[in-house]
């Protein structure tokens, strides 16, 4: 395959176009000099095509062409800076316009190539913008302190623990009780997740479960029972109210919640455009 570089020696210095997301073409941006950027500060443009516009930045091939990108991705500080810039640009728009977020590092060779992409996927992008208009994504995680859950389930398994016996039989019965208690905790945890999700889902237009994070990732000592995303009306306090109810009802059982966002609707846009 012939690379663009071989047929066009200027390709090495001509800027590439990094795309953060797609917005309606009539969006009037604020002061663009204030914008963060994955390129130079303030360097964010609306590249318009029909009724759509891409939020994009011209970026240096020395940072974002394929070979450069591959070495940059190993640099932790570069990666963090760019990931944060990607999100900050989207969040600036999120307050006053629907935005279809793109995945990190989607880059076009030219403004023309980017506009051709917008034109080609016009109907799907417009339909997605309409669907998410006025809505934002919120993340909700539920955590459980297993010891407290265990205490809560004790009442149901206590009867089977026979006191006063000794030796092998006591050991065996102890193990059986332990096993039953463990199963009981799991069952209770699943019921709790169903209950929590059913309540939150009432307040959402759409919802999706994400894989629960391990303790390493969550940075919390308790177990993550649920990791979910909800697409909600941006102005509606419904989800917060539901969460307040759940905290009140389930807090005494050792269940804790974490609310994140508002996010651009990363989890509610098509992964791949047709």
């Amino acid at each position, binding site marked *: 395959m012939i690379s663009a570089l071989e047929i066009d020696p200027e390709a090495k210095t001509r800027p590439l176009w990094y795309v953060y*997301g797609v917005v309606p073409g009539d969006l009037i941006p604020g002061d663009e000099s204030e914008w963060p950027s994955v390129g130079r500060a303030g360097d964010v443009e609306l590249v318009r095509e029909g009724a759509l516009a891409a939020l994009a930045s011209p970026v240096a091939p020395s940072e974002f062409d394929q070979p450069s990108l591959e070495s940059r991705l190993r*640099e*932790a500080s570069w990666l963090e800076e760019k990931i944060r810039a990607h999100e900050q640009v989207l969040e600036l728009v999120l307050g006053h316009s629907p935005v279809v*977020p793109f*995945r*990190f590092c989607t880059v076009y060779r030219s403004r023309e190539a980017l506009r051709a992409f917008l034109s080609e996927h016009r109907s799907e992008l417009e339909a997605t913008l309409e669907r998410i208009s006025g809505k934002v994504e919120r993340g909700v995680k539920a955590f459980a302190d297993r010891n407290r859950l265990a205490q809560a389930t004790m009442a149901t398994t206590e009867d089977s623990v026979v006191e006063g016996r000794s030796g092998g039989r006591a050991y065996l019965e102890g193990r059986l009780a332990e096993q039953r208690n463990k199963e009981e905790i799991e069952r209770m945890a699943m019921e709790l997740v169903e209950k929590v999700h059913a309540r939150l889902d009432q307040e959402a237009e759409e919802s999706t479960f994400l894989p629960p*994070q391990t303790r390493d*990732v969550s940075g919390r000592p308790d177990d993550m029972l649920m990791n979910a995303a909800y697409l909600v009306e941006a102005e509606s306090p419904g989800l917060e109210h539901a969460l307040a109810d759940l905290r009140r009802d389930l807090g005494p059982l050792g269940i804790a919640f974490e609310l994140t966002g508002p996010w651009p609707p990363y989890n509610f846009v098509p992964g*791949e455009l047709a």
Partner: protein
Amino acid sequence: MTDRQDLPLQHEVTLLELVDRVLNKGVVLSGDITLSVAGVDLVYVGLRLLLASAGTVDRLNGSNGARELEASGSRS
């Protein structure tokens, strides 16, 4: 728990939340240059340094993000 203890943790969690979404979700591909499967692996190398948490990286590697990229990467 004091604020001082909270801060570094909060910083990490927030970045991770971001990574989860920015890297694994959102409209993917159709760009001229995008993260190939190799590129995604490299992001995880960077992330390993960033988060210094093997659990994070293993979990992210297990997600279907890389597979989606691979599938659409062959289309051009």
